Structures are given as C-alpha cells and as structure tokens.
C-alpha cells in the first residue's frame, strides 16, 4: 500500500456501478479504502509512483545537455529524425 506524504485534495468523479463494485472489492481484499485503491491506480497509470527518484532526477538534469547532444549526433544519419 502506498504511503502518501503529500496532501490529498477532495475530488468528485462519476463512476459506473461496475467500477464502484470493482474498487470496493479490491479495497476489501487489500484491507484498504476505495480512495486508496483509486490513488494507487492513478499513480501507476500516470507513472507517479516512482518513490525515491530524487537522485535519479538530479543526475538526469545534470546530464540533460550531454544527452541532447548525443541525440543530435545519433539522428544525423536518420532522415526521419534529423534536424536540418
């Protein structure tokens, strides 16, 4: 089960009976709540569940210019992706 350290905000959405029943079944099976199940699904779908990515993000940011240079080099021989 995900642990949420950031604040949650109330959101109203419309769900079908089948969707509500599915969420409730999953929540009961996992000992969680409908809200927790929805948050976990949303996080997975939107790739927001990558906890501990701060170091990776920092490294990616530092290397961004170098990677962009490499992308240009690699695309030189590709007429579909080359910037001319």
């Amino acid at each position, binding site marked *: 089960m995900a642990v949420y350290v950031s604040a949650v905000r109330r959101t109203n959405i419309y769900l079908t009976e089948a969707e509500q029943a599915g969420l409730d079944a999953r929540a009961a099976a996992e000992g969680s709540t409908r809200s927790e199940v929805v948050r976990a699904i949303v996080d997975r779908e939107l790739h*927001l569940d990558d906890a501990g990515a701060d170091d990776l*993000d920092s490294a990616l940011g530092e290397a961004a210019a170098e990677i962009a240079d490499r*992308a240009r080099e690699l695309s030189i021989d590709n007429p579909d992706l080359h910037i001319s």
Partner: protein
Amino acid sequence: MVIVDDHLALLAVAGQLADLGLAGPVVTTYGFQYRMVRALADSARSGSLSRRLADPAAAVGRAVRPPADRLVVLDPRASLQSAVGVACRHPANLLLAEVVGAALHHRAAIRVTPENTGRTWTQIMDAEGIDFASIGL
C-alpha cells in the same frame, strides 16, 4: 499546452524545466521522446554517462514512462492527418511534420532549444500560425 523538444523534455522529466510562461501541460512528441530515450540507452550501453547516472536502466525507464505531472508524450495517431498535411505543404521530415501537426491538432505552442531549431523551422511555424520560440538554457 506546450510541446517541447527532447532536451527540454528531459529537463521536464527531471523536474528541472523552468516555467515556460504558457498555460497547460508540458508535452512532447513520440519523435522527440524516441531521440531522448535512444540517446539515454546509447549512453547507458557505452558507459559514457555511468559516472553521472548510477542506474542507467532506471534513467531509461523514467524517460520511457515519464511522470505525467511533469511530461506527457502525445499519441502520434491523434494528429497523424494533420502531420501528413504539414508534410504535403512543406519540406518536412517525420520529426518536423509530427511536431507541427501536433501543434496544429492540439492548438499548442512549441518551444525548443536553439540547437534543435532547424533552418526552415521558423518559416514553417510562421506559415502555419504556430506560437514558436527557441529557449536558451
């Protein structure tokens, strides 16, 4: 919505893209994402970034599946007809046709780095009425 190139997209993935002053989400095209991921994968394979990227495979995964609150990759199928129209009107390769077609289809602005501004891009963007600018870093 603002469409960004691979360099700006990578900064967005890392949460380090400065505010572009435009409303809506930051997005990129499949072509730019492909260039970004390929460069990351190539660098990971050759070890050229191993000093900076302790886990190159994780870096590739993050670029393949970026957190949606930072960067969304547009589905090229949604703007395919628009992209084809661009390629018919202008001398545009797949990368350029896709980004211009996406901007027209989604009514989006385009921001790229100066190094990724092709010789004809400004002229084509003007002809298509697109809000286009290069962003120096």
